[in-house]
């Protein structure tokens, strides 16, 4: 399949205009000694649409997850995606455009970004937001980087209730930046060690990072920690689950300086790991520290209202090595999806989705807790909770995958969260179970019945 539409005759005409007789002459600067090896790859032609579609259908048949009833979460959730989102984002004026550097041709994208920023502010309670970041993990890093620059301090104190994947990403991203990361283990049930955490916060810390609900699904109110941080000039960063924010205290209500999070739950498919959406919200006073693009209201020469990318002097294409971040391409189309999701689902809808998730999770927790030998956390939760099984969690997950239509029972804590706890806590039997509005009572009941069977075996 070729998308080159220039005919051989036209090619000859173009070569003539260029003053050469063959295309090879245009590559005269490439030394012949550096030509690619003459192997079969470069001799192979392409497939037709029909062939490539058949190949991809064959590949999807090798994925065995479609029929599974999933209780997987860990920061990435199987929420319902209204059909209108795909329909709208399929408008190619949105998805085949680039960054809105020419505002006169990009008012659609620019207004959508401005509205998206407004949605993030309304959801988190923060004053400003940006056009998006790659994902929830890099959003935490960017927030820490803002705090380090703002406070001129180098230490970041992180609760181990923050998604373990994000904690690893934070280390990978800050390895070259002379940033010290201090991590505080959670207590045995998965909740914040308030004393230990507060003890690690001193006036050499640039920021603290907490997550709500945390990796084990526990909902908290971090206002007390925020107050202590303020006394020591330490900035506060909270990573949040946007759907939960319909019901739980916002980062702003708890006094946080920066709110970040993963926006996947807002109408973005799971897609085996991405693309996702990092969001960030903060205070107006920190706008010049913010990474990435920001859309702002503007007026044209005739006083007509519109939008532009603003404060570009913070960004890499102008400030180069002194930019607030190296981010350029971000997650614009995912941000558009999140914006459409929040617009469609609306004020009451988001509260309903969150309540459905919460009620079903509470129901699932009660039922799972009634299975002999199983212990469940009694902590306040949103839609995810920690289960202690009388058997290995990985083994249990494997067994449940093979019964009924197949259940994805949850995330074995040892797989990602083995390092969250202090010494002496064994995570082998711990399972993290998530429930969204898509799970029915029937599915939950069947899951619990099968779990009981597997445990008996």
């Amino acid at each position, binding site marked *: 399949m070729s998308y080159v539409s220039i005919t051989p005759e036209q090619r000859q005409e173009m070569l003539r205009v260029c003053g050469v007789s063959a295309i090879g002459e245009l590559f005269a600067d490439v030394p012949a000694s550096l030509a690619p090896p003459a192997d079969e790859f470069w001799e192979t032609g392409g497939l037709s649409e029909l062939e490539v579609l058949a190949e991809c259908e064959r590949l999807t048949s090798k994925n065995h997850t479609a029929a599974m009833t999933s209780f997987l979460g860990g920061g990435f959730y199987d929420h319902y995606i209204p059909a209108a989102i795909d329909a709208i984002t399929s408008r190619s004026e949105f998805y085949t*455009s680039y960054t809105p550097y020419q505002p006169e041709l990009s008012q659609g994208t620019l207004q959508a970004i401005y509205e998206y920023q407004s949605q993030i502010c309304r959801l988190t309670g923060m*004053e400003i937001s940006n056009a998006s970041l790659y994902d929830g993990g890099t959003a935490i890093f960017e927030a820490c980087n803002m705090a380090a620059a703002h406070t001129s301090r180098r230490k970041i104190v992180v609760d181990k209730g923050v998604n373990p994947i994000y904690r690893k990403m934070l280390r990978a991203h800050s390895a070259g930046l002379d940033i010290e990361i201090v991590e505080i283990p959670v207590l045995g049930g998965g909740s914040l060690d308030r004393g230990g955490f507060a003890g690690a916060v001193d006036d050499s810390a640039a920021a603290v990072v907490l997550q709500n609900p945390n990796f084990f699904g526990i909902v908290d109110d971090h206002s007390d920690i925020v107050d202590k941080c303020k006394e020591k000039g330490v900035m506060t960063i909270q990573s949040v689950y946007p759907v939960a924010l319909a019901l739980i205290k916002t980062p702003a209500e708890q006094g946080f300086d920066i709110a970040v999070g993963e926006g996947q739950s807002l109408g973005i498919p799971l897609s085996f790991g991405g693309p996702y959406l990092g969001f960030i919200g903060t205070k107006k006073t920190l706008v010049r520290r913010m990474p990435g693009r920001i859309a702002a209201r503007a007026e044209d020469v005739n006083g007509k209202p519109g939008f532009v990318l603003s404060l570009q002097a913070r960004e890499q294409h102008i400030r180069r090595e002194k930019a607030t971040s190296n981010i350029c391409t971000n997650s614009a189309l995912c941000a558009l999806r999140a914006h459409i999701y929040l617009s469609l689902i609306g004020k009451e809808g988001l509260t309903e989705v969150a309540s459905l998730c919460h009620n079903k999770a509470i129901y699932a927790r009660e039922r799972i807790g009634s299975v002999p030998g199983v212990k469940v956390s009694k902590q306040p939760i949103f839609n995810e909770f920690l289960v202690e099984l009388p058997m290995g969690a990985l083994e249990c997950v494997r067994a449940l995958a093979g019964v009924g239509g197949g259940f994805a029972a949850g995330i074995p804590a040892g797989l990602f969260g083995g390092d969250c706890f202090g010494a002496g806590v064994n995570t082998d039997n711990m399972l993290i179970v998530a429930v969204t509005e898509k799970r029915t009572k029937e599915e939950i009941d069947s899951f619990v019945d099968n779990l009981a069977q597997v445990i008996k075996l």
Partner: protein
Amino acid sequence: MKIIFEKSIKNRRGVTLPKNDVPVNAAIPEKYARKSPPELCEISELDAVRHFTALSRKNYGVDTNFYPLGSCTMKYNPKICEKIAGMGGFAGIHPVFGRLIMNNGASWTHGAMTVLHNLEDLLCRITGMDAFTLQPMAGAHGEFTGMAVIAAYHRKKGNRKTVVLIPDEAHGTNPSSAAAAGYKVRTVPTDPKTGILEIEALKAAMDENVAAVMMTNPNTLGLFNPRIKEIADIAHSYDALLYYDGANLNAIMGKFRPGDGGFDVVHLNLHKTFGTPHGGGGPGAGPVGVKSILEPFLPVPRLAAKSSAGKTGAHFEFSDDYPDSIGPVAPFYGNFSVCLKAYVYILMMGGKGLTEVSEQAVLSANYIMHSLKDYYDVPFLKTCMHECVLTAKRQAERGVGAADIAKGLIDRGIHPPTVYFPLVVKEALMIEPTETESKETLDEFIAAMIDIAKCAETDPESLKRAPVTTPLGRLNEAKAAKDMDVAFL
């Protein structure tokens, strides 16, 4: 046009949800509960569809018309790629499934892992590198990842190197990414006569502190540096590594592989070279390829192919067992659906098709340059690669700058090229036509540019007033920065 929140009508709904079917009606305990629900808008599905359709009509994409934005490779995005990426068997997979092994030792997600494995392999063949990671989520993120891998390599060797050399024509992300990995940036001047990094300038800037040299080849002036092997040798003689910014790979497929030219690390922009859409500013994907000496430092998890006795074909596993790895840079395996689209694109091209892509991209850029050289100054009038850089210096003398030319193009129905970049050329107009545009489209663009050049002589004021055909005229960016209205609250 009204902001979406201004269209909100109390008690209007866009989505109806199923009733609660469990016998629980719980509330979050008050201590943890939000005081009042977020003030989201209340609109119907039709309201939303109309709102966003109206917005889309104020936008311009590759599907609208020619989009010769230099350095961005705005080529046509095949529709089949979107269709395949949307297939439930790919789009619906929770990433944790990739880490769960079935009881029989097989993977839940063999199909998706095959896509990732095959794409890594194809990118190695295209670039001449030994190993790839697909994790980086955009070009700049790939640059950061590449620099972090280089830093880890030097740390492991006990090298205390603090500087990265970058030619002055580089993309802004290069210095910014080097800084993000903890390096100081030393800028090397491009030769004003040849437009490329010359050996003498490199030698003068090199010393033991240099950890890496970051290059774009062809560079942002659209020029290929023929002495790349010598540059590599010089860098390597200081135990510095050579980094390839793959933003311009569309020029050179089948003609040159960075791996053969002495490059140690390369990042690619799948959303440029491999036809995945730019999405209005993302998501993209920025895979990073390395030579085998750097493979131990690539991000984990890495995809490992294992063949087990008695079974046909490989099976795949994600492994964290790389003690020298820089750690994960993405939550899972990168922007999978972007990678999938690029995989489909490469399958449809084949090696032969990719060579044709680069040949046509280069021919089209040269065709534009030669067709416009009598009307605009060309700072380096020699064969260019996939993009050509002109300057509006001549027009600027009459008060018509690169920005005015850009706005004039808008009035002629064409998206402007990149302007004022690269920084080493005054009044730069950086034009990248890509291979997917027809000769008729190129000729329309050329005619529009000639018309503008004439206009700059006869009626410069009309260009300074442009655009007048768009919903809005030029926007006041200074006032916007002062007002800082960035959210409707």
